[in-house]
């Protein structure tokens, strides 16, 4: 698993993104939401890196900042050696071919008024990737790759089921032969039986095309199944990072533990202690002082309410941000 000798495909250093929102009637107040706050990680080649956390923790924002669909406030994102945050529009467009995204919602991520063929052929036309006559062949190949028959090419998105649409979304992401795919809750909207089909497809493609994934999901079981390494986010910050076995079998951070314990395991013979969980996810507008998790933490100490814990690197690329370990 240790690939530290090789250069990572994606390196993210101290990524930060704050949103300003105005709210209120009659008096409006501006708030700063630290959606992503000083986040660093890397994704190795042919690796699926998971990003897990509850809604509003900023995991999707990280994914979009990596692609610069959202402009990060500070920090760098390197694709190999290229700093994406410093590219101009034109350079960005060509670099984006190496990084693509699969969205959560297979219903809204496809333009309802364009056929599958149009959706897939358009980027190739725009970027003049190949000869006009070849386009169709490439698309057909691609569709076969994602498990769709070429006959769907003239159909509209509404004629498809969710799973099929997600396959189209994947095909679109593969158009430019990318190296990195950001999968933003790519299977969350799908039914369980379809979920696995898509995950397997992604897995196969990874092998076949040497892809890497930044896999964003709230479903820990899916992350465990699909990823090699995973980072847990809480209110804009990483709380823990490590391999899936490390994180899910021996969680260090109390929040990771909480998450793990709260996820119901489909086995009635295992009794889970749901009763111990308390508190709500605080609003990202006003996160608690000190460690964001301390009001809900069973092991909170005095210092937890005062200082945010430093990120501590442990062995084998494992890291945690908790006063218990610093």
């Amino acid at each position, binding site marked *: 698993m240790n690939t530290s000798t090789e250069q990572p495909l994606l390196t993210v250093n101290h990524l930060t993104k704050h949103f300003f929102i105005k709210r209120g009637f009659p008096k409006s107040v501006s708030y700063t939401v630290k959606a992503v706050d000083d986040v660093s990680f890397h994704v190795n080649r042919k690796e699926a890196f998971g990003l897990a956390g509850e809604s509003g923790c900023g995991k999707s924002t990280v994914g979009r900042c990596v692609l610069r669909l959202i402009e990060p406030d500070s920090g760098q994102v390197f694709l190999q050696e290229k700093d994406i945050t410093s590219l101009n529009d034109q350079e960005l467009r060509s670099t984006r071919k190496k990084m693509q995204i699969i969205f959560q919602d297979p219903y809204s991520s496809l333009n309802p008024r364009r056929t599958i063929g149009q959706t897939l052929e358009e980027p190739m036309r725009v970027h003049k990737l190949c000869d006009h006559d070849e386009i169709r062949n490439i698309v057909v190949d691609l569709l076969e790759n994602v498990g769709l028959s070429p006959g769907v090419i003239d159909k509209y998105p509404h004629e498809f089921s969710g799973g099929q649409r997600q396959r189209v979304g994947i095909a679109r992401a593969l158009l430019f032969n990318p190296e990195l795919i950001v999968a933003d809750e790519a299977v969350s909207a799908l039914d369980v039986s379809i979920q696995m089909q898509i995950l397997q497809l992604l897995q196969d493609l990874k092998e076949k095309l040497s892809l890497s994934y930044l896999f964003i999901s709230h479903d820990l079981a899916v992350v465990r199944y699909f990823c090699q390494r995973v980072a847990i986010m809480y209110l804009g910050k990483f709380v823990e990072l490590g391999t899936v076995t490390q994180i899910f079998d021996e969680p260090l951070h109390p929040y990771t533990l909480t998450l793990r314990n709260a996820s119901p395991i489909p086995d009635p013979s295992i009794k889970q202690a*749901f009763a111990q969980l308390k508190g709500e996810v605080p609003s990202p507008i006003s996160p608690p002082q000190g460690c964001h998790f301390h009001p809900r933490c069973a092991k909170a100490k005095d210092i937890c309410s005062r200082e945010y814990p430093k990120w501590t690197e442990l062995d084998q690329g494992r890291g945690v941000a908790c006063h218990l370990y610093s």
Partner: protein
Amino acid sequence: MKYILEVKNLSTAFKLQSGWYRATTDISFVLKPNETLAVVGESGCGKSVTAFSLMGLLPEHGSRIDSGSALFKGEDLLTMPKEKLRKIRGSAMTMIFQEPMTSLNPVLTVGSQIAEAVFYHMNVGKAAARKRALELMDMVKIPDPGNRYNDYPHHLSGGMCQRIMIAMSLACEPDLVFADEPTTALDVTIQAQMIYLLHELKEKQQMSMVFITHDLGVVAHVADRVAVMYAGNIVETAPVADLFADPRHPYTKALLKSIPRLDKDNKDILPIQGMVPSIDNMPEGCRFYSRCEKKEQCRPDKFPQLLPIDNNPNHLVRCLLCE
């Protein structure tokens, strides 16, 4: 009374462009007092439609109940006068919905929405209704109910709103609660709290519950018995331990094999191939036929019945191979 609810051969149809189509066919199940039945299935399998049919909440236009009966404490919900059903609804039989934020009226205070249920069913004054609402809010562990009473839904988090919904559904001490994916829209830590709360309340209140969900993990922790639905049919129903330990229907088996688990390395996961047939294109025979592992041993044209297996009246399966 042996059963609090006894549903027989319920079929509900919807109107599409090209005619009426059945969303659920031949739904039969029973519910004992103080029992939780989990109805599990993928989206579109008809689990919510069943609950709405029983609650009388189907849209007035474009839907109809084709056949069946549903005895609630001995009275048929499907044929009783509307006004009588309305009086049962919200008092003896209530429902919790999936989206707590949109299911609460944005322009009314949450407290008044709870009190309203009390006021219209329990024949008490406004002050008493308010008092009862505060009690209920306390019961569902809303901190500082006195102040929260006058909050509007948008002031509260999703978890809190769901607690309000639960309080509302328990206002008149119902005998039966339908919970339609009550935790799906919530974060996993909040979901766990909610599962625990429902469990606790059920112990306290002595009620039966139909818990609709697509999450087998949740099922494992809330249900006494499970009904698995597929494409508008119940395909298997069994006590929860039996179902997980010894699934008999090929769909149940495949489903259990296809879900990743957090506590294990998922080496042996196998997805179910193929797709659910669409409502306007249902096969004549077994609806799972095209995706079934053992379809070579089966015939496509015969529609299987829901029958006890191994002579166990608590474990029913709809499968030709098991008959």
